[in-house]
Every structure is written in structure tokens, then in C-alpha cells.
């Protein structure tokens, strides 16, 4: 009924994995739509990150709690309904907390439902692991996602408006690069980050290879 039962122990790696090594945006390239759309200001980036993290944790924990009960055939449908419910809850919660944030994020709150990260985690992890493991992993993944959004949001807001969290930090003479606030800017900044991370990975690999070569050739 449930999938391969390879429950793993709870380690620090369960948490850190989601933040860095398997960062949902930069490594697995999931959840691109909100990453590009709502990062034109750092405040929006954090709000979206937190909202998604909330849905991620709640829905995955519930999936994990019900993993032995949900038959394989209807699992995707069940996951989707669970995720959609929590997104609706978040939608109303944000409306109640701050109408400004709600209007800034717009339709993308409802689009959290189709954020591949959440469904992907539910399918790959929550449906096989214990509740505690799932909770920890979800928190890690959520933080990783929020960090990725922040990376973009900070760059785009500082360069595009000269402010950070609506506080002016660059001098008034700085002519903002409006391009950063446009859709094109989102694409460019994300591409920039991916290039940077790829470059660092390549350098790390090359260094590891050189070290290996040195230990082989040297004595």
C-alpha cells in the first residue's frame, strides 16, 4: 500500500540538506514561478517564503501522519487536496494580517498550490518518512527556499529601487536600475546566481580533483 519503506534516522543532515545541498531553487530548479515573480522587493520575498514554508510544513506533516493510510492510487489527489486546503488557510491568514502584503503577492499566494517543491517533497519524502523527520526536513527546505527568494529579492530591490525592506540604503544620487524590477531583471538575477553557484561548484570539484591527483602522484 505505501511505498518503499526506507525510513532513515533523524540527523542534522536532514535539516541542512534542504537548506543548502538540495536547495529547492538553486539545485533542483523547482518553484521557479514565485522565485521570479515576487522577488521585486525583499519584503515580498520573505512573505512568500514564509507562506510557502508554512504550507510545506503543515501539508507534509499531515501527509506523513497519513502515509500508512493513503492508498497508492489516490495519493496524488489526496496530497493536492491537502496542499490546496492549507494554501486557502494561508490566503485568508495573510489577508487578515496585512492587506498590503496580500495585494503585493497577489495571485501568487494561490499559486503556492502548484509549487512543485511542495508536491515533490510530499511524494519523495513525506510519504515515506516519520512525522518528526518530515517536519525537520520541511523546515529545512522551507528555509532554503526563503533564503533563495531573499537572495534574489535583496539584489533586485537594492539595485532596482535603492531600498532594502523599504528603507533607503543607497545614496540619493544612485539612479536605480529599473530593469531589476521588471520581469527581465528577475530572469537575469536568477541566471546570475545560478552561474555563480555553478562556478563555485566547478572550482570545488577541480580543487578536489587536483588534491586527488597530488595524493596519487606525490608520496
Amino acid at each position, binding site marked *: *500500500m505505501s511505498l518503499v519503506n526506507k525510513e532513515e534516522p533523524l540527523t542534522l543532515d536532514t535539516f541542512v540538506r534542504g537548506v543548502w545541498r538540495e536547495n529547492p531553487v538553486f539545485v533542483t530548479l523547482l518553484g521557479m514561478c514565485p522565485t521570479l515573480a515576487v522577488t*521585486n522587493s525583499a519584503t515580498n520575498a520573505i512573505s512568500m517564503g514564509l507562506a510557502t514554508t508554512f504550507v510545506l510544513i503543515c501539508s507534509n506533516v*499531515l501527509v506523513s501522519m*497519513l502515509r500508512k*493510510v*493513503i*492508498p497508492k*492510487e*489516490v495519493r*496524488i*489527489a*489526496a496530497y493536492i*487536496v*491537502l496542499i*490546496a*486546503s*492549507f494554501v*486557502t*488557510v494561508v490566503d*485568508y*491568514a495573510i*489577508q*487578515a*494580517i*496585512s*492587506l498590503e502584503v496580500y*495585494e503585493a503577492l*497577489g495571485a501568487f499566494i494561490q499559486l503556492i498550490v502548484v509549487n512543485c517543491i511542495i508536491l515533490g517533497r510530499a511524494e519523495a519524502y513525506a510519504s515515506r518518512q516519520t512525522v518528526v523527520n518530515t517536519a525537520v526536513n520541511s523546515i529545512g527546505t522551507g528555509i532554503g527556499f526563503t533564503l533563495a527568494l531573499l537572495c534574489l529579492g535583496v539584489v533586485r530591490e537594492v539595485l*532596482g*529601487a535603492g531600498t532594502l525592506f523599504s528603507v533607503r540604503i543607497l545614496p540619493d544620487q544612485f539612479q*536605480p536600475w*529599473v530593469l531589476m*524590477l*521588471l520581469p527581465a531583471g528577475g530572469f537575469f538575477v536568477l541566471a546570475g546566481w545560478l552561474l555563480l553557484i555553478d562556478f563555485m561548484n566547478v572550482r570545488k570539484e577541480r580543487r578536489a580533483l587536483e588534491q586527488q591527483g597530488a595524493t596519487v602522484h606525490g608520496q
Partner: protein
Amino acid sequence: MSAEAPVQAPVQAVPFLPMIRTLGLVSLICGFAVTFAYQWTKPYVEENQRITTERAVRAVLPGAVTQRAFVLGKDGISPAAADSPAEDVVYVGFDAAGKIVGIAARGASRGYADLVHIMFSYDPACECINALKVTKMNETPGLGDTVLKDPDFKRNFEALDARVNAEGTALANRIVTVKHGTKREAWQIDAISGSTVTSKAIGRGLDQSAQRLVPRMQRHLAELERGGR
């Protein structure tokens, strides 16, 4: 969820009852969560909306001490409720003495990216629009959002002619946005060059709303003035 390749071994009959039971359980949990969230947040959401509306009205009616919302139908006025048709709601501002200061109303029209929402105020004494505020817009930063800051554009709305025609059915002259620098008449809006689409959206939204509501405001002015008492 999808059977792509032909199955080799005969498929085991899928147990019906566990599926129904699980889906039922999931639906129950979800239904409960959603309904609970909706009911619990409803008062907060309505409060937030009320505060935002009040702030917008105060921005276009600075002299108003109190404001009341009415539904301005074709035949008369009635107090506004949560389910009143949004396009007929007007907000009347009264000063400390209970005298009418102005009547505010909303408008919206499509700009470049999405609808541009405005709140404007009509002054019955001068029969003109004397303030306008953009309440919500999603226009291109740096281009479309100059309508918020440009002082020349704001000056358009200090005494925008909104006289009603002789029959009292519509405005005497259509409010229209004209190319930057070509404004000749009191009912024209001088666009910002470089933001033509957004300027036109504001003009259109204002015209549509004013054509609809200002004649009614004039017709029921006495009732609106009395609304404060």
C-alpha cells in the same frame, strides 16, 4: 495516476473501501481547516478592508471629519452594506458641523499590466472633481508609476470639470486623457509622456465612474447632504 505502458501481470483489484475511507478522512480534515480559517479570519479581513477604504477616502477628502458610505442607485440612496454592488458605493464626507465636504467614489480601468484602481472626490459646490488618488496599481515601475509622483499630473485633478448635462443623465463633456501638453479644456487630463497607457487608464476609469455616478449625485444631492443627520 496514469497507466502509460501496458501492464504485464494482471492488475490486482484496487480496494474500493480504503480509498473512499481515506479520501473521506482527507476531505474532512481539509474542510474543517478551511472553514475554520475562513470564519476566524473574516472579521479581521473586513476590518482591514474598512481601514484601507477609510484611509483612501480621507486622502481625497482631507476636510472630512466623518464619512458615511451609501449605495447610490438610480432611484435613491441607501446605507451601504457588505454585499452592496461595489460600483455604486459612494462615500460622503462631512466636516465637524455636519456639512457636506465632498463625495468620494471609486473607479478602475485597464492599464498596461492590470486594472488601475482610483478614488476620486466630487465637490458639488464647484461641480468638479477636486482630488484623485490611485489606490491600487501594478504598472511598470519607473514608467507607469510616475503617475503617482508627477506634480503636473496631480494638478490635472485640482478642478477637473464634471458638470452634468441639461437632461441630467450624463456629464456634459467626456473626461478624456489627451497627449502631453495639448490640454485646452477643463475636462481634459494632460497625460504624462512615457506613461500614456497608465494615464489613459486613469482617465478612462474616472470617466466611466463619473458618467455613471455624478449625475446621480446631483439628482440626490439633498438626500446625501442630509445623510449625516
